[in-house]
């Protein structure tokens, strides 16, 4: 193996009361079959959208904030095409910045600080070499956008300019309930307040579909790839930002109708050097209970974690955030401690790898 892998697995159990946070084209909550029974489902794209919105609220951004983007881009251009000398590379850079409508002064610096990541610069260089005609709008987005973390985590698809695409370093599974769900619907009538006294009956009738579920949510992060896109320091900062907002966000569908915003009941964060593992297999046989789903779901999840241990390398770290006592990992008391421990473990892992090189 030339370079070591470093993955973060996020396993979350979250109970959501009557709600309809992600609906299909008929307005009903999304579902899926697993283990032969119907499960509540929240699509990955829906939850990623919620995380992205949370990034905006938190003003999360990572990348290099610099005036020297032109010089950095020139270096990237020369990496792509070794025949370019310094003057030719800088000429090309000037064209790119001109097309994007960003002024460069005589020292080859931009007037304002640009927030840009290494991955974006190398994409941009490749794009400029492959294309005579430059798409102004796309260039502007790359150079003036502040979404480097967003792009590095979730990828980006620009159908018109595929060279500017970024492959995602995060993988987010559709969340499914650990148990069988039965779709429910709420029949409602609404009165017209201004209705004449001698008129009876409702002004409006309807139904709202909903269900309630204890969801198993899974996501992982390829730290090697995230560092490749950003850099090591930004990747660690980006990873903790992602963990935090993945745990705290929820799609907003019908939030005002159901006020269903909960927090996770159980969080397991595993740092692995071999492969990410989605423990959804724990729930292939659905949880059955007449006394709540959270505790039996935690038991099943931890049993599955233990069962998979024999096929996998020893994880670097396994952190648990839950009020239930854990049998399989190091328990932390709150989210801040969780993020601090993840940062510490990641910094150590990155350092160890550098020494190995």
């Amino acid at each position, binding site marked *: *193996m030339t370079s070591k*892998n470093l*993955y973060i697995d996020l396993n979350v159990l979250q109970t959501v009361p009557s709600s309809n946070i992600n609906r*299909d*084209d008929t307005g009903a909550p*999304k579902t*899926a*079959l*697993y*283990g*032969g029974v119907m*499960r509540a489902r929240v*699509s*990955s*794209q829906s939850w990623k959208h919620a995380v992205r919105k949370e990034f905006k609220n938190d003003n999360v951004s990572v990348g290099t904030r610099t005036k020297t983007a032109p010089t950095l881009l020139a270096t990237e251009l020369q990496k792509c095409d070794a025949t370019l000398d310094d003057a030719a590379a800088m000429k090309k850079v000037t064209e790119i910045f001109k097309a994007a409508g960003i002024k460069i002064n005589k020292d080859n610096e931009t007037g304002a600080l640009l927030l840009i990541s290494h991955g974006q610069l190398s994409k941009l260089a490749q794009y400029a070499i*492959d294309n005579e005609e430059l798409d102004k709008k796309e260039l502007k987005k790359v150079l003036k956008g502040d979404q480097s973390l967003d792009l590095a985590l979730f*990828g980006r*698809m620009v159908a018109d300019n*595929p*060279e500017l*695409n970024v*492959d*995602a370093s995060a*993988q*987010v*599974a*559709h969340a*499914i309930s650990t148990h069988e769900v039965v779709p429910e619907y709420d029949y409602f009538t609404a009165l017209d307040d201004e209705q004449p006294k001698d008129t009876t009956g409702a002004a409006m009738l309807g139904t709202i579909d909903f269900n309630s579920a204890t969801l198993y949510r*899974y996501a*992982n992060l*390829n730290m*090697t*790839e995230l560092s490749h896109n950003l850099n090591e320091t930004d990747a660690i900062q980006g990873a903790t930002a992602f963990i935090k907002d993945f745990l705290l966000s929820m799609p907003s569908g019908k939030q005002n109708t159901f006020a269903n915003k909960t927090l996770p009941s159980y969080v397991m964060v595993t740092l692995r050097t*071999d*492969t*990410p*593992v*989605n*423990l*959804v*297999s724990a729930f*292939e*046989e659905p949880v059955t209970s007449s006394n709540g789903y959270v505790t039996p779901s935690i038991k099943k999840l931890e049993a*599955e974690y233990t069962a*998979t241990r*024999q*096929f*996998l390398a020893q994880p670097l770290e396994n952190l648990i955030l839950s009020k239930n006592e854990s049998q399989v990992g190091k328990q932390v008391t709150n989210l801040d401690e969780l993020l601090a421990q993840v940062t510490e473990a990641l910094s150590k892992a990155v350092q160890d790898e550098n020494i190995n090189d």
Partner: protein
Amino acid sequence: MKTLTIKLTAPLQSYGNEASFSRRTTTHYPTKSAVIGMVAAALGYRRSDQRILALNDLSFAVRIDQVAKILTDYQTVEWKKDTRKITYRDYLQDAVFMVALGSQQDQLIDEIQDALRHPHFQLFLGRRSNAPAGVLQLQVFTETTPLAVLEQIAWQAAPWYQKKNQVRTLDIVADANLVPTAQGAMIKDQVESFDQRNRRYGFRAIAKTSVSLNQLGSQAHDIMGFL
């Protein structure tokens, strides 16, 4: 020939065939190009890596152990500000497939097995959100072909499925040259390029066959052998 089996199972899988943006359909079993993509990801080949093409030479067969139910997911995409497109994406739900890859180069099969245990990029079953359920179950067989292996190893469907369904045979879809007796068909499933600038597939020949359950090894006998 050395053969590697991979058990593909997850709540959701999807193996796109020719489709438009608004309606993304799936075949009802894993395509060879999807499995090649997964192997390439494990080996750390990026999209434009030419080494991907050599993986087309692997011998390929897949057995449908637990038949999927189709799910159509409704999704809206905000492709530019305040402009939304609607897309329907099909998924296979609750399915189990046994894929077998074979090669005369024994070392290549060992490399692929090692890479799938230590994947360079995340593995997924046709779409990024479809992470495999649990640890990927792999097994290597020597001196046999993918088809011969699939005609021998135990049925991998979940116990509830085995109990509920009156199944006598399992369908197998393989490279046409592995099933010389069967009528072949051409499908657009030969990887030419995964590069997003120019994603291309050519045609490859497949043939379908099936295996009777009472011909297979018993579940109790070798289920642990897989792990």
